[in-house]
């Protein structure tokens, strides 16, 4: 049994110029010594339209991890502007931090990122070709979207049938009630007592 719980992710150097590296300070807690490293990735979503523009900015191994609370700063270079569709450079996009253990992703943290020109002139009349030097990246640090996945911590990623979130709302109990109406109301039936001790 082992489990890693992400306690906090602080976004450092934010807002910052577009070309600055991303810096996330991750605090996590591990319940048992982990025999293998965790793999962390930062993925920059180049375009909301297609995953094809997703860039993995970097991936690092983190270890060794004895039981306890740990922190580290994950720094990764800014996205390769050449891979971002020009129409999507300015505006809102997403950066994802994922963590996998033994090849299984168990947490995905998403942040909205707003890229905009600081210069009012540019903001009003954005150039056709984005001027990345003038862009400011603002990560919406206060509102992370966290998705946790159920993984097999002991073994490898052989078969985890439910690696996606389990459907919440169990509606099984909303079935029709049983034989209503026939029983007399409470308190009107005389012989229903338990003998005393």
């Amino acid at each position, binding site marked *: *049994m082992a489990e890693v719980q992400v306690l906090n992710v602080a976004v450092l150097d934010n807002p910052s110029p577009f070309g600055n590296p991303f810096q996330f300070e991750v605090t996590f807690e591990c319940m048992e010594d982990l025999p293998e490293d965790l793999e962390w990735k930062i993925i920059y979503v180049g375009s909301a339209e297609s995953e094809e523009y997703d860039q993995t900015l970097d991936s690092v191994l983190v270890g060794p991890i004895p039981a306890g609370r740990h922190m580290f700063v994950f720094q990764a270079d800014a996205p390769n502007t050449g891979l971002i569709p020009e129409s999507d450079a300015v505006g809102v996009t997403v950066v994802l931090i994922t963590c996998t253990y033994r090849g299984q992703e168990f947490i995905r943290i998403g942040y909205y990122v707003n890229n905009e020109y600081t210069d009012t002139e540019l903001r009003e009349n954005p150039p056709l070709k984005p001027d990345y030097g003038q862009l400011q990246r603002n990560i919406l640090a206060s509102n992370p979207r966290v998705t946790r996945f159920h993984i097999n911590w002991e073994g490898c990623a052989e078969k985890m049938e439910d690696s996606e979130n389990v459907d919440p709302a169990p509606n099984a109990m909303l079935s029709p009630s049983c034989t209503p109406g026939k029983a007399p109301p409470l308190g009107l039936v005389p012989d229903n007592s338990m003998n005393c001790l």
Partner: protein
Amino acid sequence: MKLLKPSWVNHNGKPIFSVDIHPDGTKFATGGQGEDSGKVVIWNMAPVLREEDERNENIPKLLCQMDNHLACVNCVRWSNNGLYLASGGDDKLVMVWKRAAFIGPSTVFGSSSKLANVEQWRCVMILRNHTGDVMDVAWSPHDVWLASCSVDNTIVIWNARKFPEIVMTLKGHTGLVKGLTWDPVGKYIASQADDRSLKVWRTMDWQLETNITKPFSECGGTTHVLRLSWSPDGQYLVSAHAMNNSGPTAQIIERDGWKTNMDFVGHRKAVTVVKFNPKIFKKKQKNGSTPKPSCPYCCCAVGSKDRSLSVWLTSLKRPLVVIHDLFDKSIMDITWTLNGLGLLVCSMDGTVAFLDFSQDELGDPLNEEEKNAIHQNIYGKSLAITMESQLSSTIIENPEMLKYQQERQGNQNPNEAQGIGPENQTPKLTNVLNGESLEDIRKNLLKKQVETRTADGRRRITPLCIAQLDTADFLPALFNSVPILPGSSASTQLTPQISSDSSTANSLGLRPSHDPTTTSPNKTSHFPSLSTNTFSFSGLSCSGTIEPMKALDSRFTERSKAMPGVTSVPLTIVVLWFCLRVKDSSSVKEPKGKDETSSDSEDKIMVKSIAKRKGEMEGAEVVEKRKKGRPRKDAKTMPFPQVTFLLSKDAWISKSTDGAFSEGGFTVSTDGVTYLEVENEVSVVSGSRLSQLKWSREGREWDVLLPSRIIIAAGSSNVVAVACEDRTLSVFTACGRRLIPSIILPVPMSALHCSGHFVMALTASAMLSVWDVQKQTALVKNESLNPILSGTDATVSQSFLTQQGVAVVSLSNGKTYCFNSSLETWNLIADKQDSLVQCTDFRNCVSAQDALGSMGPLALTQGRNLSAGRLASRLSSTPHHLQQGMTLAFLEKQLSSALILLSASEYRHWLLIYARFLVNEGEAVREGQCHCSQG
């Protein structure tokens, strides 16, 4: 009756499936649906109970919320001792939670709620085995087992002392199992399922006792849960949804013959939950009327899909109260407060209701003594009865024990209601970091953190450890209620069972019997003295040589400080002996075997001695009452499956001796229990006082009289040794024959151990002797502890004798020595501060199976979980070959230590690791060795 719906108890409108009040009554847990996961929330009880607390913004309402369950939580249940919370959910998991004291308030990362958690509850165990949603969980009496049932049609019995071990999977239901309840006597567990049956299983062999189907034949599988309940007297089991004449009922099943003649009728829809009040009541005596002896009765709450709640007294033919339209949807769970007067109900509609009864309405709750008397009448003098009385004390005492522990740990705000400010706790984190504040660290983290490249060129960051978890928390074997008291001689190996025992035993010993006048504030005030006020070892004639003795145990110093000028204060000594049963004679699987050092059938048992100074008058009264009022056989209360033994309490005027140290030993063989019992001053014959030593095992027993007060007794399966105040040591065979005439010791005895045919004696002048009484030779002759004690102010914290007759002495500075009789030297076998230990990194070479093979005297001295590698991660900056060297040196040390202790299994264990390490680190090591040979 007062009714309250605290609107602040909610899961943001999502259904609440389960509710349970903590045994100490200060908080309660709810379980249900969270935003996109299951949710467990712990709430403060005070704002529910008192309006002013509800309005007071300084009193937190929500204490902690946990989103770890991946899907809806169907059941939350506190352990009887209040230390753990178990939750089961649709994610097929059972999680066990424990409060983490060291972590400050925090929010759940990523959750929309910005409320900080006031208490930190951490999942310490995830139990995976079910292949379907877990519907109900239940702790057995004494928290020996945890049962969980699931839609996979099975019930799993987990060993709660050794999670995640499975004791048994109960198969037999052919439908979704939706409710569980333990017999309060501990003999049965009952389950109810959608297969229209209620099954009662024996805990003795986990076989089916009875299968009840008739009342359920008309039932459809329409309820989410079927939470059944057993009455506190054990006589009745009440089912959830049953049918009688096509009307929904709660079926009453009598323990006697499992008869099903009665039921609770009246709900319009299926009964989802039944919950008995933990108290047994008797009629409230009215003023003036002659007290008529009335039958005691039970009280039961029934919740239904018809959204109404009914509360029944078994003495009335009609319900005491029925509340309709309390909720918008089906009732899902009910929980009573421990005093039996409060009731929390939760519903699918996501709300919770609190009912507050008065004693006029329910009656006078019986106190524990009366309850025990009832049990005694019903169950006779069987094991069940002793368990039962134990059970009651467990319920009453353990929350207090828990509180006491928390106070002792000193990081606990005694009043939960006042909450714990963030400021109070955050400094603790910084302590871990050598005085550097967390802020400082964060500023420089990026620069400071160690980043390396792996062989394939990938970045690898070594995270900064900002707080180490107490690994003891994670040892499933330590899953029990009481911290290991220091100085527990030679018993680390058995600590799991013993320390859990000590809670019951402590409560037994210090509990002012069942005297109503001594109420809980009194009791709790005694607990602190329990651990701090132990034995002084001063006095006697040889004050010159006594100095090293003071060093023998730091605990001993405590009393001498407290004693100046009060030598005439009478002392009361309460000696608690405990013994544990390895196996319940028939078939209870006690998970012991793996822990044993080797194949030997013999174990050492810790014995605790507790002295209480008659400081305050109340305390004195309490103990004296016990002395007089409690017949001896009552003292032999047996919890289940262990056995607690209480004996030999006596008071005497302390003149020359300020205290006495009594110790005893028990041997336990796999098929029986051996008791060793000491009674000082059993009779006075012509001015001389006689002491008695009793030995019993499986009905065979012998006793022997000794002319002097017995200070220490110890035994093994072969011999029994007794040290007396007149500085004699007597050795008997296990059959009671005196082996050798009394050995005269130069000074009084401090510690005595037996193992096989070996007897080890540690005297007050810090001299060690070990004899082989079979061969009648001395292995160690009056060897002084000075070599290991000189130059330090350390004291002896533990001593024991291995199976092979090697004497081991641990000091309070973390060092452990053994005496090698052939070399006639003291050898350092373990050092907790050893930097080598902390810097080694051989985790890659340890496989899961190895952990089992590592048990033995060496592991005992080094602690069950070796702190090896603790600092390894932080030292990654040290050159690899250095760490390698340290690891190698450490492993070699372990090897030689195991060898000198003659511990075969440990030698093998470390040899394997050593070999693996050499193979893993192959080249570099070989190079290193080449260098060595060249040099």
